[in-house]
């Protein structure tokens, strides 16, 4: 075995690319050096280099193989072709079983040959996200100019060229602290030599050093550092020799909203925010230099403090200018901001969100004042898009609106609703709580969903440019976390109607398709065209006519709900079973039903009853195929056996109980009631022959099984359950 070592030393590699490049390099070794059975493959990514080391065989072992050629009787052209293809001559062939055979004996091959050959060739095609040519590179490209290639096999150079660079055994340490080259003899010596030359080449080690260094530096002032894993990763890619320092923030600039200050610190400067003992923002920032400076860092700290002062002075300017106007005075300007060419301006959108927020708040039982507040917040929620601060920092949309609403005297509830209306922005983001804030956040997302579905911009397998999946997931989480009872299809209907009014033409074109879709989804529809030319369907939950596009959007949301359940390790087939029975659009209730059913199925009674259900369903399927369906009233006079009488009685009792519990929305109790069926069902199958010789008895017993199925379907379509 031999130690393989490769280092590709270049000018500064963008931080965000280093880790992926290191992984790619490890994969390349695994794939290209496979004949050398590489193991202990370990790769490195740092600011000026990627590297990999592995233990490999010293040579590719010799191998023998046989190639079968044409038949001995084949025309001579076939033989010529075979020889040409394999670069062989007639004398090398042997004849066996009526065929020509070429025996290939590949001799063993030194590892260096494979490395300098196929491996180096594959390296030249290394997949950087974006690469470039430079003065000496010719047609060769790399992420930034490649300056050195170190390639060693047990300490000996494997000679090859990569673009304009010939491999050798010299590398470099820190750019300023130890300029010049040093000789590499092994992977371990390389890593240690680099450390002595002020380069921590292992990314995890750099990250940990920074984490500890920041904590220590802040700790000296009695402060903590605000966690930011993404920033930590980025900074770890920007420095070779991390030196953590603390700078002071101008006390006057602590009056800025912390979000503004800390975003500027992070995005523009890669600084970490600090917290005092109580967890409040402290007037210091922590940052990472790439050098242990000869004055202990005094000039570096002073410089960074000055830069931050200027940055924050910019922010202070916007903060002061923006607050000179009332938030609502910006509304007319939203007319100049396009949301989407087919969905109008942000002004039009604000109008829709206003109406929708009011509708949602009402549906959630809000009083007049709360509904008004939700509408007001909806109207104002996009106004900050034309503020100076959001122009500079788009990430602060919503947050600035909240501040400006407060300073315009809109009241705390409205300010909070505006502030949180984009939330949740991701699966771990906080969900707005309270009816007013939640109504606005829901309105924002539902308008987005309805809008893009109406204009036909639905997500495809790979593309979701308008983040509709995130919007749908946001709707789900807001409803579930707040345990809202929201008639979702009706709210979607309001949203679609609003959109359709503003883009009537677009709506008309897709009407037919929408109706066809609703029908294909087996929604119990009276699909028809309304006087205005748009399709409506019956909402099975409310019994009202709703826009025919709604079921498709609702299904999209339900699909996200399935994904969510799956990601939480829950059974989504249980959700399907419930959905197909309930036609419910109250997500909270759907989940309650789903959980109750899931719990029941997990119990012994539940599993047993499911088995009985399947047995009856099987019998019914087979018998229905002969002379079914077997539906209709059970004739009590034809119930002969004690077990079937008992089952019929139990079914009626359980059904009455189930209906009562379902009306009370006590799903767990409804499910528990089904446990009472277990004994009579078991007894029935033990003692009663369904396919009795008497046709009358047989029909009545099949009806009894159909009744069992239908009673169970009151809570869920058990046929949708898997496993």
């Amino acid at each position, binding site marked *: 075995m031999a130690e393989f070592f490769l280092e590709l030393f270049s000018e500064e590699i963008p931080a965000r690319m280093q880790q992926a490049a290191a992984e790619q390099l490890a994969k390349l070794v695994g794939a290209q050096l496979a004949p050398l059975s590489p193991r202990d493959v370990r790769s490195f990514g740092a600011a000026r280099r990627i590297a990999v080391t592995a233990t490999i065989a010293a040579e590719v072992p010799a191998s023998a193989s046989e190639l079968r050629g044409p038949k001995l009787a084949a025309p001579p052209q076939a033989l010529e072709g075979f020889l040409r293809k394999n670069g062989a001559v007639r004398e090398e062939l042997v004849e066996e079983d009526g065929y020509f055979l070429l025996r290939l004996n590949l001799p063993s091959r030194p590892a260096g040959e494979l490395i300098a050959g196929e491996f180096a060739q594959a390296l030249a095609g290394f997949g950087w996200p974006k690469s470039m040519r430079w003065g000496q590179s010719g047609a060769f490209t790399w992420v930034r100019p490649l300056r050195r290639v170190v390639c060693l096999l047990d300490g000996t150079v494997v000679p090859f060229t990569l673009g304009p660079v010939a491999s050798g055994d010299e590398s470099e340490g820190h750019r300023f602290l130890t300029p010049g080259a040093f000789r590499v003899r092994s992977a371990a010596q390389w890593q240690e030599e680099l450390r002595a030359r002020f380069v921590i080449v292992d990314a995890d080690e750099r990250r940990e050093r920074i984490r500890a260094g920041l904590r220590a530096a802040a700790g000296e002032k009695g402060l903590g550092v605000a966690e930011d894993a993404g920033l930590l990763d980025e900074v770890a890619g920007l420095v070779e020799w991390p030196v953590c320092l603390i700078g002071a923030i101008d006390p006057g600039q602590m009056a800025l909203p912390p979000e503004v200050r800390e975003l500027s610190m992070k995005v523009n400067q890669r600084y970490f925010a600090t917290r005092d003992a109580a967890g409040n923002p402290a007037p210091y920032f922590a940052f990472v230099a790439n050098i242990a*400076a000869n004055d202990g860092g005094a000039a570096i700290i002073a410089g960074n403090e000055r830069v931050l002062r200027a940055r924050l002075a910019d922010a202070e300017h916007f903060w002061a200018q923006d607050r000179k106007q009332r938030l609502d005075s910006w509304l007319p300007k939203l007319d100049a901001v396009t949301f989407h060419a087919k969905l109008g301006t942000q002004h039009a959108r604000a109008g829709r969100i206003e109406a929708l927020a009011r509708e949602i708040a009402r549906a959630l039982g809000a009083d007049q004042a709360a509904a008004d507040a939700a509408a007001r917040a909806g109207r104002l929620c996009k106004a900050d898009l034309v503020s100076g601060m959001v122009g500079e920092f788009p990430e602060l949309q919503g947050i600035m609106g909240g501040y400006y609403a407060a300073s315009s005297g809109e009241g705390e509830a409205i300010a909070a609703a505006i502030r949180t209306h984009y939330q949740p922005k991701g699966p771990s983001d906080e969900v707005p709580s309270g009816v007013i804030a939640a109504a606005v956040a829901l309105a924002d997302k539902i308008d987005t969903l309805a809008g893009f579905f109406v204009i036909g911009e639905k997500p495809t397998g790979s593309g979701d440019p308008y983040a509709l999946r995130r919007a749908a997931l946001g709707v789900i989480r807001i409803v579930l976390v707040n345990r809202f009872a929201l008639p979702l299809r009706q709210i979607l209907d309001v949203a679609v109607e609003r959109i359709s009014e503003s883009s009537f033409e677009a709506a008309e074109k897709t009407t037919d398709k929408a109706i066809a879709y609703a029908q294909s989804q087996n929604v119990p529809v009276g699909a028809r065209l309304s006087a205005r030319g748009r399709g409506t369907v019956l909402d099975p939950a409310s019994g009202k006519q709703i826009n025919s596009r709604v079921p498709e959007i609702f299904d999209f949301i339900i699909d996200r709900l399935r994904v969510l359940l799956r990601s939480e390790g829950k059974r989504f087939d249980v959700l399907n079973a419930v959905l197909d029975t309930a036609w419910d659009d109250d997500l909270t209730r759907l989940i309650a039903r789903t959980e109750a059913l899931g719990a029941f199925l997990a119990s012994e009674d539940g599993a047993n009853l499911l088995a009985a259900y399947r047995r009856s369903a099987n019998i019914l399927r087979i018998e229905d195929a002969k002379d079914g369906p077997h539906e209709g009233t059970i004739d009590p006079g034809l119930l002969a056996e004690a077990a079937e009488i008992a089952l019929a009685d139990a079914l009626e009792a359980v059904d009455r109980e189930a209906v009562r519990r379902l009306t009370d929305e006590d799903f767990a109790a409804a499910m528990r009631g089904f446990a009472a069926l277990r004994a009579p069902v078991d007894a029935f199958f033990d003692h009663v022959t369904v396919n009795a010789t008497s046709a009358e008895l047989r029909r009545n017993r099949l009806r009894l099984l159909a009744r069992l199925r239908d009673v169970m379907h009151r809570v869920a379509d058990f046929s949708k359950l898997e496993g």
Partner: protein
Amino acid sequence: MQDQKHALSFQDIILALHRFWARQGCVILQPYDMEMGAGTFHPATTLRSLGPKPWAAAYVQPSRRPSDGRYGENPNRLQHYYQYQVIMKPSPADAQELLLASYREIGLDPLRHDFRFVEDDWESPTLGAWGLGWEIWCDGMEVGQFTYFQQVGGIAVDVPSFEMTYGLERLAMYVQGVENVYSLRFNDAEGPHALSYGDVFLRAEKDYSAHNFEVADTAMLMRHFGDAERECGALVARGLAQPAYDQCIKASHLFNLLDARGVISVTERAAYIGRVRTLAKACAEVWVAGETDHG
């Protein structure tokens, strides 16, 4: 910023950079005599980065960004400022070292300060140009942009150039340790001739801000834009690359003025940029044809 009293004056920074880059073999050019938004527009950079011939030049270019005017009230923003521009073709193998040496020349010691190369993908939609490189940071402050040109005027370059742009005011503020651009020491004279940046430029900043935002005759500017566009086309047809390119520069600046006057809508904006890019591409093609034809 050790000893900021002895830090270089604004004009001495320029002179130090001139001497340094002259030693590296650059021709020291004077500013191009037209209004432009960035030093990159100078034909010594755009046109010369195309074609096969080696080239190295350094110069100061006044840069005009009409929308950045603040009536002299913002300590960090100007509608007219200076860029120091270096271009070397082909890019030298030690470009990064040269650059760091140039910072040493003006008093920024990399053993005392924290110099960094932070990813920056440069692109100029109006010039149809892009390149890869970095922002150069010194103690968290951007003190320059370093680019390896890959494409200019819609044409992939024959030989990549190294382009370095220093924002002179910002750099000087850092070197001198001042927080307001108008307080920069412009020269090292004593007595009445000791002049600050404000003494030299404050009045102009105020007046140009008013011109850019309030007064400039937009109908005239639009007319001139059309004129420049037509003239550029006519000159391209005659194969006169640099005169044609002058009209492209003119059109670009007229567009910037119209933009500052707020008469260009969002959708029109993209169209205007596209029109300037079309001119830049045509000029670049004519230039390259001439470079290869005549050797």
